[in-house]
């Protein structure tokens, strides 16, 4: 299962979005998030975007005040995940128009919906922005 979880964390370390593709209890999630945030947020721009943690490889990227952290299997291609993060940000950018932390906070369910279109069960299923956003736009129109 390529992708294990996707986190969005602001630079204060507050979780803004958390999507897990394997079941962890709330306590486990909280502990994991704390460890990862501590590890990744301390790193600077000159350091690489890959961190090994427990049995995960964490690929992360910072966009403005928001960190996108993706936990993957050791087999996974790190650069592909970086591209995936970028694709995710671009998609959100297209939908929200210059996406920022607040957009994700106030439209969390939309962010989840986009993720669901892109990733299912840890597999990347859709990489076309218009395909990802199609259903959301339909629903926006309907409501």
């Amino acid at each position, binding site marked *: *299962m*390529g992708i294990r979880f996707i986190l969005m964390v602001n630079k204060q370390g*507050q*979780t*803004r*979005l*958390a999507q897990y*593709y394997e*079941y962890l209890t*709330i306590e486990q*999630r*909280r502990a994991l998030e704390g460890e990862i945030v501590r590890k990744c947020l301390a*790193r*600077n721009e*000159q*350091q*690489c*975007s*890959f*961190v*090994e943690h427990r049995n995960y490889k964490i690929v992360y990227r910072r966009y403005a005040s928001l960190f996108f952290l993706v936990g993957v299997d050791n*087999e996974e*291609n*790190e*650069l*592909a995940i*970086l*591209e995936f993060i970028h694709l995710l940000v671009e998609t959100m950018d297209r939908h929200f128009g210059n996406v920022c932390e607040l957009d994700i*906070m*106030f439209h*969390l*369910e939309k962010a*989840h*919906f986009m993720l*669901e279109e892109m990733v*299912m*069960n840890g*597999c*990347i*299923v*859709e*990489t*076309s922005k218009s*395909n990802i956003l199609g*259903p959301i736009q*339909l*629903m926006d129109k*309907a*409501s």
Partner: protein
Amino acid sequence: MPSTPSLMDTLFQRSLEDLIKGLRLHNPGPPTSNFIEKNIQEIKKEIKSTDLNTKSIALQKLTYLHSIYSINMSNWASFHAIELTSSPFFGHKKIGYLAVTMSFCDTNEVLLLMVNQLRKDLGSPCEFEVSLALETIGIVINQELAVNLIDHVFVLISSSKSFVRKKAIVTLLRVFEVYPDGIKVCFKRLVENLENGDGGCLSASVGVFCELAMRDVKLCLPLAPEFYKVLVECRNNWVLIKVLKVFGKLAELEPRLGKKLVEPVCEHLRSNGAKSVVFECVRTIVSCLSEFEYALKLAVEKIREFLVDDDPNLKYLGLQGLSIVSRKCLWAVVENKDAVIKSLSDADVNIKSEALRLVMAMVSEDNVTEICKVLISYAIKSDPEFCNEILAAILLNCGSNVYELIIDFDWYVSLLGEMARIQHCQKGEEIENQLIDIGMRVKDVRPELVRVGRDLLIDPALLGNPFIHRILSAAAWLCGEYVQFSKNPFEVMEALLQPRTNLLPASIRAVYIHSALKVLSFCLHSYLLPNETDSYWVDSDSGEAYLPSESEILGTSNPSAVKVDQIYEQRDLSLEERRSSIENGLNTNVAHEQSSSSVPLKQDLFTEQSIKNLLALVETALQPLSGSHEVEIQERVCNVLGLIEMMQGELPNSVVQGGENIEMGESKASDIIRVVHDAFSEDLGPISSSSQERVPLPDGLLLEENLDNLDKICGEIELPMSTSFSLGRPASDEHDTGSLFNNHDKDESELSKESTSLLTEHRKRHGLYYLSSDKKEVVSDYYPPANEPKTQSNDNDVTEDLVKLTEQSFLPKKKPNQVKARPKVVKLDEGDGGIPSVIKKTESTDNAISGAVPIPLSQEVIPSDKLSSNVKGKEKLHIGQSFESNEHTANVDNSELDTSRSKRSKKHKERKHRSSGKTAEERDKNGVEDKQKSGHHHTRHKARHRADADLKVVAQTPVIPDFLL
């Protein structure tokens, strides 16, 4: 009605947006949690509403709080979530399903209530409803659900809508996980999607097969042609990466695939612009296509591009790629050595660690020196954490497999010394272990070890760093144990006693003081018995020519030209001599010494004045410590002071009174010193951790047997202590013992009347601890508990007792017919002492055998172990070997040695020397000195006793001078 919300509640319900805004207004910490708590109460009320709108908003808020603030909702909101999924409105349904996917796990009890709803939604004409159901199934699936729903999902794989199809395909992956039988049913349809699916479906099915391949490669092997088609035709990089991964797995299973694969993979490598695909191609080539040279070269070229890139991500991946290559072909790493070593100073610790791992992979016998030099220079520059990572890597690699990589041990030892001086060094424990381990295993390097140890000891600055105290402990031990290699023992002594040693923890200070005792005994020995000293060292070092410093000091002719065989002969002879001398009492020795003391001292170092100064130095430095609260320190200090006291009783006579008394005085002093010195000159060596198992079980010994009758043996002795030593021995055994020992008792006791008188005095004071039965020969009769005073003159006696002790405890039922019982003990002890020492040598020389755990034989090695019964036990076993086993083992030993020699490879020449030289002679030494060593442990009691008197004398000593150099 109180629980159902009123119309007012519904009208003025807080929306999700209100909640988020409210959360933002509150400060983090208690205010926020109070606010959340308030909202949860509201939500609990609202969620019970019959109005689906109110309910959905409540659930939406709850889901938000759950995912961001980790509020547990599965225990009370599950049912409401399921209720919402059956709403006719898509908006409600979506909120319900989102809550389910966010909070449910596959063991949730209410899941069964969902089966019907899921089935209904899977069959829905609205593709978004289908997609919601599929996503939920992917997350909450369990076996029961799988059995119930697989048919419905299966139908969807061939749906006309690509949107549904791709999701159904991915959902199947999870279904297979809990319900593997499903694979058979769906396999064909999945393959169809692989062959002619559009973008999304292809991506999904490749993803599914990639996951399946990770679990079971064989399943995917028949699909190789289909994958190949994708590999050649597909332009989607995501899919390409997955296909490459699949082929990586397949090629491991079916090597013939490699030939077919290598071309398209190289093509992608050359032409694809995406770094992710390039890296995946590189990874595929280096991990399973490395036999194709041109492909490998291409891959290594790409790796180099990554390595020199400024992007830290690419650099990191390049290093990772290299470390995969390094498992098969090291040349690729060596080719990129510069880039790798440069990465050691990268800003990113991940990159540094990766580079370090690669550098260590490059290490071989030929380059270990240069690599370590480079690494140390980086260690000095880097931050404490990485510095220690480097040091740990060096220590681990160099120490692996019994120092397999090290040829030049002198260099390695000085490297260890250098490490101690690195500012951030925190690897004290490991360095300590290696220093001592090398000291015991590698005989040739001891002079260098002593030099390194001395350099560390005399540097007062090092004492201030608690991280390297362990190293100093090792240095002190080495300088004491191998003091004969020291160029200037006086200097070592000063270093050991310098005032700043009060910064050391007690256990390490005890090592310092004990080493001081060894140095002292060596100096006195060299001064009093120069000739004997010579013969000892030549003897014990098997006449090798590596002792120039020592021969300089001692001014001896070193028979380095003597061939090894001759040395063996010599040793056998000296062995014989020594035994006879022992058996005939010490008369010959005395005579010998008397003649030897008349020989003028050749060396300049050990003059009367220098010895006197030394004694004064030690006394002033240690006197204040004799009242230390640390028992380890106090005991050892008393040992040293006691020895000095004794020597001062003897030495000044020869000096002051001159003439008549010289011979008598010196001979007494010499005897004492010889005994002390002999105790220290036994060689310590590593012993295999399994050596105990190789001890043959003697006849009649029942290890499992209940030791009830131990009470009977002990019952005869009234000893308050219950240590293993308090076993004592029945007085009746006294005359049954072999004549061997009794002779010595007499000789010894005659020789040391002084000690005896002291003993009697002590006995008066601590009568409680002595045996009640009073024999004519007081000395040989009493048996002290472990911590009781004992004069060194009794050591033969102790040995004797110990031998008996072993006999008794090993043969509890036998009648104390010692003459008959002894051979068995001999056998046992021979196995115990003899075989392990042989094993030890084969192990340290033949590197194929690993796992030789050095177990120090004497207490001095690890002071903290000192009082453990373990050590005592070992001592016991060892002693048994003392006289009897010598001859028996000599032959076995040589033959074993030969086999081990033939196994050895050329490169380990040094070790060869050591093992060939050591064996028989060591046995010889073990024989005599072991015994005396055991005796030595008891000398301190007397020493302490005497120290009481010393206090008055030394009260008037001047202020302690600063011994800093």
